[in-house]
């Protein structure tokens, strides 16, 4: 595994997420996020999860973000809707808090000895391996996810539709 790829993808991902959280304009934020999703897919490829990498692009970039941009365009935001008010103290506190959290986690993780990854077993991360596990051990989870998606459909329709009778 080439470390340069890792560093490149990691830098792009983090940079784009940082850009996103500093954005006022939701479209720009969404585009930043899409780029970071792509580089995450690259990281998944480095981790030999090709199927997940493609799904990442298909689901996140291709479905979820399209939905986001659709809604942004649908809402037809004006410039003045995107005003910003600075709340420096609040933001500073948030920054400190999440900085503390990340330091804590990083300190924890860096205690892990830097073992490089083991050789992957044959068929690791292929569609067959994932599929056979999904329909045997995790069949219950699969069923519940079906229900969850149904809930999503009902919810989105219920919340999104205009009421006709008035």
């Amino acid at each position, binding site marked *: 595994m080439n470390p340069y790829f890792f560093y490149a993808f990691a830098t792009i991902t983090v940079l784009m997420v940082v850009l996103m959280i500093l954005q006022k304009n939701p479209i720009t934020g969404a585009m930043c996020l*899409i780029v970071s999703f792509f580089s995450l897919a690259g990281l998944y490829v480095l981790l030999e999860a090709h199927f997940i990498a493609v799904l990442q*692009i298909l689901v996140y970039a*291709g479905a979820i973000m*399209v939905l986001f941009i659709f809604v942004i*365009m649908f809402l037809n935001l004006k410039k003045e809707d995107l005003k910003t008010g600075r709340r420096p103290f609040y933001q500073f506190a948030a920054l400190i808090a999440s900085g503390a959290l990340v330091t804590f986690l990083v300190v924890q993780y860096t205690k892990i000895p830097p073992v490089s990854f083991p050789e992957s077993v044959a068929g690791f991360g292929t*569609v067959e391996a994932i599929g056979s596990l999904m329909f045997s051990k995790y069949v219950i989870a699969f069923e519940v996810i079906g229900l969850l998606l149904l809930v999503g459909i009902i919810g989105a329709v219920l919340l999104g539709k205009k009421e006709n009778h008035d």
Partner: protein
Amino acid sequence: MDTQLLHFIIVTLKLVIPFAIILTFIPLLVWLERKGSAFIQDRPGPNRAAIMGIRLCGLIHPFADAMKLMFKEDIIPSQVHKFFYVLAPFIALSVASVTFLVIPFAAPMPFGGGVLSFQAANINAGVLYILAMTSMGVFGIMLAGWASNNKFARLGGLRSSAQMISYELSMGLAVISVIMWAGSLALNDIVSLQGANILRWNFIYDPLACLIFITAAFAETNRTPFDLPEGESELVAGYHTEYSSMKFSMFFMAEYANMVIASALIVTLFFGGWQIPFLDTNTFRTNADYYLYYFLVAAAVCCVILGTFLSIKFKKGRFGDKRDYEPLVFGVPAVVAGLAIFCLLVVLGRFPLPLEAANWIVAVCQIFTFLFKVLLMCWVFIWVRWTVPRIRYDQLMDLGWKFMLPLAMLNIVITAVRMLWQ
């Protein structure tokens, strides 16, 4: 030769050739579209542009168009969001061209101790990759619509995204039944499984999926009858209202590139991909010399007949200019070449081919078969565009959600039952 260098060259060629093919297909398709529409509407079509009087049935027109668009002034309107306005056409075109990487052009071929596959990237989840990439195409259109800051453009972008989301579902579900038959997501496996027998190709074996997929592909490429994002009767020109010059032409090219890719995908999934009808790869390889000989004979005969037919149409003063000589320019060399090949074949007789050469011949034939099928499919796209009227937006949504989606789900159930049956 150094194997590493060879490897490098092969990878480069694999990357370059698909792009080259798309790029050559685009002007060809523009010409085909204009000529085809003219044929359908019973008019001559483009026939004015000429280089030194040579018109080539209007084939010069696409080049003239390209020249014009390239040298036009590139206007960036003042109200647009500049960055995304410039970015959008690039996204549209580049997304359209990377999809071609996983399409197999011919059967994998033994080569230099290894296997040479005619596919830039043999991804385990090829079908998903294509679905993912086609769903990226919408970003170009949506960004163009948003960045133009114009209500028509915005409406076009909005429509396009809604349309893409709706039809991607039935497209994906239609592919699933194909995947179920093939037991693999790799496109090459799907093609290999269909075999040389036309009856096993998926358009006969699984016709419902084919129908749904083709319909969804029309919607995904924003072609009539689903070209609402740019429906000029309502939205001026939809998402590319504000674009001009090269940026406009990039959208234009992206549309045709998408068409080529959709056709290639339809051919790969449902029409046997690179399979030559009734001639499977192994039979062809072992008997390559035989097939080559008779193919050349047939080609020579065709050349002679066609050339003669053209030549006798020559009549001086038909147009009164250089176009009078067109039949002769094409006809006489064809006859001569046909006769020459025929004589050569008769003199040489059938000659045995080395294994490498046989393999290459098979590969080339398969590539041409594939491209021919793609061209035919593109013609279907053009044919539909000029014969079917645009549908209304609510009809579009109803068709997608209330008809095609349930039908695609039903098809999966049918496929599952058929698989259990067998």
